């Protein structure tokens, strides 16, 4: 009997406002502990929260991007629980009336299949502080700089059926919030976090199984591993005659396992109620229209445009539109390369991606600019250099030697198209390899590649490959 996993994700995206959602304290990451926790963030008596308009704008932008209704009136509620990193004893969140209603996103799988995943809702809330559990004489240390940072909690429908789909969905939301410029997506710094609700059911069963919530998943790789591990665990329990208890589990990436954090019995009873310190958030049509007008081209639209306009495959277009920065880089390169879109795509996804990856750099820090890469493509197209030499030129540009024309001139890399020079090299190669020549002439065609290689070597790779091929065929013929 086959098992079908059912997965839903809750994503917390920190909105990249300058100040906190309810106070004027800075949200900058990495400052000295507690230097950005003001009296409001600390929940001192008598303080009142005042809502940050920019956080509301960002939530609206997200809602519009997923085709969801933006609530004309939404309400903040108090979610009550006690933990030292939550100074007020409650988190201000939205419960019954979130600012963003039901929408959806389309995810693109590696095999080109497209699936629509429902987004139940998205609501505004404040982040908590951080607890440091290193030993401070048997105590925990609390840093409240993060307390009050605006979060958009994005809740999906239980629409995903595999860990791979869950990752694809998470990446889609990640790209979307970065395109919108509402979240920096930095998972190491915790700006983009995810909890997964996972259950399994027998194939064909219309009812969902009992679900477990996995917390603390802070990378795309861990999401896939944590969910797959949890699916296996649940199947094992059920097939062993046991039953799944609804509980919260913590993923431990070091051991690649999930373990119980709290069961349903001790689950928190949050006693939500409308926050009397905050009045309803009213968003009028003009506000929504202004946000709509300011929306950038979104990933899916860009992907489709890239496919149509640059004649790229769905896969290539997907890779090149993964981030706005990469897409912009690609488009600038194509422009500099006189519209050679496929050539440009190969270079951006090939050598450039490899070098960025190797040095762990972002596209914005690439020493090779789109103008340089575009003109490199031009030099290949106009046959100044061969594709092989171009790789060498790219590396030299990467190492700071300037634009391709300068590099080609300085290192004498211009393609040799002088027939005389190539013929001379061929003659030398033939004289040096009489045995192979004999074998070739008696029918061992495969040796042709050997001769091409020898001639290229003799010309330090600079001979025009096409000319070498043509001339060799002629000379080698018996």
């Amino acid at each position: 009997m086959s098992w079908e996993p059912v997965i839903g994700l809750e994503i917390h995206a920190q909105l990249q406002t300058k100040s906190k959602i309810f106070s004027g304290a800075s949200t900058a990451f990495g400052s000295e502990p507690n230097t950005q926790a003001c009296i409001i963030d600390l929940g001192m008596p008598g303080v009142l929260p005042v809502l940050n308009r920019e956080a509301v704008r960002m939530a609206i932008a997200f809602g519009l991007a997923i085709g969801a209704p933006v609530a004309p009136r939404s309400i903040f509620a108090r979610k009550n629980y006690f933990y030292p990193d939550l100074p007020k004893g409650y988190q201000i969140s939205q419960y019954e009336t979130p600012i963003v209603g039901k929408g959806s996103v389309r995810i693109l799988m590696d095999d080109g299949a497209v699936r629509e995943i429902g987004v139940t809702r998205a609501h505004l809330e404040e982040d908590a502080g951080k607890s440091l559990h290193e030993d401070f004489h048997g105590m925990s240390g609390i840093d409240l700089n993060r307390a009050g940072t605006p979060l958009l909690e994005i809740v999906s429908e239980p629409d995903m059926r595999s860990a791979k789909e869950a990752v694809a969905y998470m990446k889609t939301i990640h790209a979307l919030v970065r395109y919108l410029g509402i979240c920096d997506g930095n998972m190491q710094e915790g700006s983009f976090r995810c909890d997964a609700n996972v259950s399994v059911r027998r194939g064909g069963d219309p009812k969902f199984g009992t679900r477990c919530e996995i917390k603390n998943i802070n990378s795309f790789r861990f999401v896939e591993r944590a969910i797959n591990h949890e699916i296996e665990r649940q199947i094992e329990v059920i097939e062993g005659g046991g039953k799944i208890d609804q509980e919260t589990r913590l993923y431990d990436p070091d051991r690649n396992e999930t373990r119980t954090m709290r069961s349903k019995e001790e689950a928190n009873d949050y006693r939500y109620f409308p926050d009397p310190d905050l009045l309803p958030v009213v968003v009028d049509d003009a506000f929504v229209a202004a946000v709509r007008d300011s929306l950038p081209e979104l990933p899916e639209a860009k992907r489709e445009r890239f496919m149509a306009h640059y004649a790229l495959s769905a896969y290539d277009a997907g890779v090149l539109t993964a981030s706005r920065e990469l897409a912009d880089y690609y488009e600038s390169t194509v422009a500099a390369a006189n519209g050679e879109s496929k050539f440009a795509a190969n270079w951006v996804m090939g050598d450039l991606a490899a070098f960025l990856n190797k040095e762990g750099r972002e596209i914005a820090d690439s020493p090779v600019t789109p103008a340089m890469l575009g003109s490199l493509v031009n030099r290949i197209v106009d046959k100044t250099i061969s594709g092989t030499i171009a790789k060498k030129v790219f590396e030299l540009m990467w190492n700071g030697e300037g634009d391709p024309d300068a590099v080609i001139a300085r290192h004498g890399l211009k393609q040799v198209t002088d027939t005389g020079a190539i013929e001379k090299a061929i003659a030398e190669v033939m004289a040096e390899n009489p045995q192979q020549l004999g074998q070739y002439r008696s029918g061992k065609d495969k040796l042709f590649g050997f001769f091409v290689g020898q001639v290229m070597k003799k010309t330090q790779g600079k001979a025009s490959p096409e000319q070498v091929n043509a001339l060799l065929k002629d000379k080698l013929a018996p």
Partner: protein
Amino acid sequence: MSLSRQDVEKIAHLARLQITEEQIPGFAAQLSNILAFVEQMNSARTAGVEPMAHPFDTPTRMRDDVVTEINEREVMQSIAPAVEAGLYLVPKVIE
């Protein structure tokens, strides 16, 4: 609706309130009275009445996204029972 001893104990636990054995019947009676009052309000006809989230029926004001607070850690931490390396220290929360 009247609240049981267990209800009172649960509510007290959720609010992290320490109450004594002797206080429980009194709280049970008081809380039950509150619920009875809510039930009485439930009988009011409210069909077609938009629920209010707040007695002041006006939208919340919003502020511009500007950093206006300065670092006042020293003042804040002067009233904390224990601090170290800029952190507030609390009884250990996990094992």
